[in-house]
């Protein structure tokens, strides 16, 4: 609001001064100083990211996480090595009565053989920690599998539990099926009756056989997520 008392020259000089001040202020925000502010801001921003959570177990329909592990023969394998094929992941631990139920009865070796005949890659994974009472050395693990006539493509040793945690494997046995595009299509138990009795195997539905039959028949997997039963995976406690 003008007072009217000021004369034009005062007004114009104050106006020019303020305009110049405004211009200078704007110039002060040069690239360099703005960058300095931004860099300082980023440093603080990075600390916010530091607290962000890591990852999740994949859900059905999501990409199965890649991993690398050494098998009982000392060879390295990556999940991505088998791109283009169906891959079955079987979490196992010979010390668990539920694993014994399926191996001593011949059920798991038969499922492995049926899968192999279709060209499916079968990876048996042992995520038992080294300090566990039933930890097996690679040679002993291979011998146990051979004794039971199991025919997996490879037996992977995962004593740090990295692969198990990535997939959210909870029990032994816990089965996962990955399609040729690398997408998880099945996660759950080996069959439908949760018990440690061998006599329940013949009356139960073998979910892995069923899922593979559906997948090779071009149909979607009907029971894609089922109850996984067994002993808990003996993860390394951190």
């Amino acid at each position: 609001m003008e007072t009217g008392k000021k004369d034009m020259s005062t007004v114009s000089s104050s106006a020019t001064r303020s305009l110049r001040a405004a211009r200078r202020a704007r110039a002060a925000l040069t690239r360099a100083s703005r960058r300095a502010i931004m860099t300082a801001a980023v440093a603080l921003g990075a600390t916010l990211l530091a607290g962000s959570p890591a990852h999740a177990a994949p859900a059905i329909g999501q990409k199965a996480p890649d991993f690398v592990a050494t098998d009982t023969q000392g060879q390295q394998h990556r999940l991505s090595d088998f791109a283009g094929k169906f891959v079955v992941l079987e979490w196992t631990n010979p010390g668990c009565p539920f694993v014994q139920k399926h191996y001593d009865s011949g059920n798991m070796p038969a499922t492995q053989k049926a899968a192999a005949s279709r060209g499916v890659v079968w990876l048996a994974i042992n995520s038992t920690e080294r300090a566990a009472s039933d930890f097996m050395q690679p040679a002993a693990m291979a011998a146990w599998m051979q004794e039971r006539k199991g025919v997996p493509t490879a037996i992977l040793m995962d004593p740090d539990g990295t692969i198990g945690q990535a997939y959210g494997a909870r029990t032994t046995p816990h089965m996962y099926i990955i399609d040729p595009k690398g997408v998880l299509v099945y996660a759950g138990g080996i069959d439908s009756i949760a018990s440690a009795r061998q006599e329940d195997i013949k009356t139960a539905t073998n979910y892995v056989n069923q899922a593979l039959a559906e997948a090779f028949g071009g149909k979607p997997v009907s029971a894609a997520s089922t109850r996984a039963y067994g002993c808990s995976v003996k993860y390394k406690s951190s």
Partner: protein
Amino acid sequence: MNTFARRLLAPFLFLMTAGYAALALAQALPGGPAQPVLTTPHVRAELVAYAPQGVAPGQPLWVGLQIQHQPEWHTYWKNAGDSGLPTEMHWTLPPGIDAGDIDWPVPHKIPVGSLANYGYEGTVLLPVPLTVSPDYRPAPLARSLPVRLQASWLVCRLECIPEEGTFTLDIPLNGSLALSADAFQAAFDARPAPLPDAGAVTVEGDRLQVRLGGLPAEAQGRMLEFFPETGELIRNAAVSGRDWTQSWQGATWTASVPLDPQRAVSPSSLPLVVALAEPRTGEVPRAWRVDAPISGTWPGPAAARAQVSPALQAALAENSAAGGPVAGAPVPTTMPLAGASFALALAGALIGGLLLNLMPCVFPVLAIKVLGIARQAQDHHGHRRAALAYSGGVVLSLLALGAAMLALRAAGAQLGWGFQLQSPAVVAALAALFTLIGLNLAGVFGVGRLAPDAVLNLQARRPLVNDFLSGVLAVVVASPCTAPFMGASLGLAVTLPSAQALLLFAVLGLGLALPYLLAGFVPALARALPRPGPWMETLQRLLAFPMFATVAWLVWVLGQQAGIDGAGALLALLVCLAALVWAFSLAGRARLIIGGAVAAITLAVAGAIGGNIVREAPAAAVASADARWQPWSEGRVAELAAQGRPVFVDFTAAWCVTCQYNKKTVLSDPEVLAEFDAKRVVTLRADWTRRDPAITAALAALGRSGVPVYALHMPGQAPRIMSEILSKNELSAALARL
């Protein structure tokens, strides 16, 4: 006694004893070699009964299996959790007697590393009610009810042993069997009590929101433990306060529990038990049970979308190398933040909002506000109200945007910040708006002559509404420029529960509005501003040009989205709009004739080429033709990571000014490019101009929801995210580490 009798006594006594022993033995073993007790190396299991009034219809009659565990061994609840099997019972009873289900006492949560089970340690009694029907006729001469139990259980410490046993027990028909009364009473006390209110469970994103009312007054305000009776549903290993939260609102208890990513069931109701986490000794009841109906949409199996697997693998490798615990917390499931880190996130949001004022897209609106303050330099009261109205506009519109984003997140849409400028229609509308404002500033038309008197007076009386609306405008334009703090805060907001996310948005708005809020309240600042004078008109004309500059930028953005035809059509329509607006500022017949003619031309142009604006440009025009910057895809990153090549991914979008700035400066610098070549880095560009869901997912996996994001994937390490304003030195330092 004579000698004859004495000679007969001994054998007679012997026969009597033998016969009695045989009889007793025969009575004690009715069916087979089973007893009420079984002792194994891990448990002592016993079949017990409670029949204080004998066996008769209508009288309480309970049997149960009492399991005494060896230290460190446990058996399982009806939902065993991540592994294990619940104890099973099969009863053999005479006709007329029926056994009910096990009345499970409240369990304990038994964590096993990153997994968890629900079960019992020490001594537990699993009671089962028996009902005696009126038709029950005991066998002749029988004085007891024979009960036979075949039970199997899984007992574990670290290793698991499945065990089973057969038990028999006789319950006297008359008389009272109350030897185990105390044990049964303890089991009854440990039973969850039913609640009158069934409560409600809602599926929200990847979590279940549980709401229970009607809990008794003694329980209110206390920590509860949560036990779902349905298995394969939630993440059992969720830790209270970190992975799942609970709170009390008066008499209502609410909790937010994470779903298992590999859940096998989508039930319509959830029977659940809640128990006092710290019950006082002898407190009864200490647990409650409801069968809560579930509403909401279950997260469906995700379509085969890309997830950042190399980042995952690298992060895993990093985690295992560091030997730290794998969090197992999903991204982007909502995970509430604890106090300190949330306060830090809020501070970051505030500073981010402040910095947003400096970004080139907010500056024009800034300019208008400067003008407003200059005009009202003496009016302190008006200043304060205006400042508050502006802040209100900013905060409320950011909250509205945040709420919309949360609603869409809940609906499962793939969304990220800046979504408004991904739609060509919105870009065109904004361009028209800014053109109008620019023309108004340039003096082509005055608002006074366009609007009827009533509206004018409204505006005069309610200048606050103008300030409020300019606050809203500031937000609308600011959205795509993600400053460093905003990027991190927003990425975080997507993962937070609704309340925390909205608070974060509000604080962001506060930061954006803060300069004007302060200017409004601190008279010194207002006084520092120049006094009004003729210079103001010059300034007003001058400020028209930033407006037109913004229009030019928006036309360029539209060009990226809809191609050159779309940009041309928009320009033509803007010219028509300018002419129209000027025509309506005329008076009398001139207004009618010229206005009518221009309106007709505008409609013709809109009809002819207006469609180009919303039509999408051919993909070839959008994708980068540069041989160095290859198109990004999830598979490509995985492929390159497997080959051991470092990958630099530029997540960019046409409407993102910061992205274009970086693209033209640091990312085109020959020295930087030479360094990329020297380290054999493959450069990929992910163009998010058109809301590609694969890219949205990849951004989310990196903890961001907006662009720009620069990620350097180094083999064997977690992906390194660079700052939003790239600097040559930062990039060189990161590359040097390869």
